[in-house]
């Protein structure tokens, strides 16, 4: 029968081994040769876009890369789906955007901020998501 010291060794040993593997896999994932995000394309505009995204807690309603609030549409590939003009109109709308009744916060963004958010969304749209990009709804190319 298992003794208490064996149980403790199982806990400590298992934790240390899996922790080391976890750290190893993390380092492996972020090696440049394994980059799936086009990291080199992150410029000042994309960074500014991310800052605006976070400052307004867009993730509190929308999802991006499948993460967020599930209250408003997924924005991965939104530029490909809707086009820049549509996204610009939403961000600069003087009244709360509310297609089909669900309201968005009114942001009335200026041109500079709008361009930054679009640059950020474009960068997101080019990430290799291991197949999720083909499933995430509703991609025009899958409708054909």
């Amino acid at each position, binding site marked *: 029968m*298992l003794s208490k010291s064996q149980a403790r060794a199982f806990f400590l040993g298992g934790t240390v081994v899996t922790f080391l593997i976890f750290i190893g896999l993390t380092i492996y994932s972020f090696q440049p040769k394994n980059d799936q995000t086009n990291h080199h394309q992150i410029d000042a505009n994309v960074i500014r876009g991310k800052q605006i995204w976070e400052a307004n807690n867009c993730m509190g309603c929308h999802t991006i890369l499948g993460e967020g609030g599930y209250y408003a549409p997924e924005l991965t590939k939104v530029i490909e789906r809707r086009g820049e003009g549509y996204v610009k109109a939403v961000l600069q709308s003087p009244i709360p955007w509310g297609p089909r009744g669900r309201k968005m916060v009114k942001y009335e963004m200026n041109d500079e901020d709008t361009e930054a958010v679009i640059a950020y969304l474009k960068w997101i749209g080019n990430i290799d998501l291991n197949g999720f990009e083909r499933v995430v709804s509703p991609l025009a190319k899958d409708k054909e």
Partner: protein
Amino acid sequence: MKYKSQKVAYWFFGLCMLLFALQIVYGFIMGFARIGWDGLHNVIPFNTARAVHTNLLVVWLLTGFMGAAYYIIPEEAQRELVSVKLAYVQLISLALVGVAAIVGYHFNHWEGRKFLEIPRELDYLVVVNVLLFLGLILATLFKGKRKTTTALVLTMGLVFAALLYLPGMIWFDSQVMDSFFRWWVVHLWVEGVWELIMGGILSYLLIKLTGVDREVIEKWLYVIVGLTFLSGLLGTGHHYYYIGVNKIWLIVGGIFSALEPLAFLGMALFAVYMYRKGEKSHPNKIALFWTIGASIVSFIGAGLLGFAHTLPQTNIYTHGTLVTAMHGHYAFWGAYAMIVLAIISYALPNVTGRKRYDKTSGHMAFWLSNIGMLGMTVAFGVAGVAQVYMERKMKMEFMEVQNEISIHFVVLLLCATLFATGILLYILEFIKYGRPTDEALEVKSY
């Protein structure tokens, strides 16, 4: 109650009740918004309500864990807390940071990162607050007459929880790296170190409520927390399938997260077996209900419902849908909310000296909240599966789908009303117990 300083726990539990009630109010605001009743949109838009709802959850659970530690550690270490005054300072500062964060969310002041919305300047205050808390607990433990496994596991969970807050404070230019390390905080909290805290509290409650030998209970505690880390650490990979990192996580995350239910199954079997094995008939039946309930519901919510969408082949469709909300609600309820309510139910008679065991309202609180939460989970589940099918298979537009599934949110609101009634009864029972008193030291605690 054996030590005077254990009374501090009562005030932490009181703050828990307040924050929990407020969390439910914001949950209703979100529920009503989903069926189109968004009259508060201009004051409390959905993203504000959501940030408040989820952050209040985290804060009230942490407050509950802290209260549990202030109650358990003196008894386990067999000495008074090193400083009661500082514990009160810690409580008040925690409440102030929480209030400041929540008020800020209503004025667009946040970091906008799911679950970690607290703005940076308050992050630093959180760190100071937690350091003070850990200092008090560790000093008490260090100066204590004994160091039990239960106390060590509980303290280890609290220390790791504090350390893991740090990766969430690093700024990344890349959304992918941001998400990757955000899960170091969120996943490794809820599917890692918080389980240590849960295990520690569960172990303490089982020792007290069942009378089973401490050595037996603590041996199995090691096995369970061992299983937790063995599966949970690499199980983090299930958050990495589709966020833009290497495919290796599909394999590693798939295998290890599929093993995660084992820890929760172990926890459920452990609690039920110890209850059956125990010869002690403890009079505090309500605490026993919450304790055994927590172990079983956490297995269903965190274990089984997590497993339901954890394999990459399933998750590719369910990722980013209401299926996650289904799992999230029942998992948090079973694993963490119920264990906090269990320790409160156990501690209240002991710190107040009033033995309101087995009151009908206490049992009603247990059953109504549990039935209500089960109903909410089913409503989220049905809405989520319908969403997956319509949006991801039939390629319907997001809002078209949301209108189709809105009926499930009517059901959700009805079940939430049942749940809220249960919690209201629990809070009323908490109030009826009255304040803690030194006279409780003379009353025999079980």
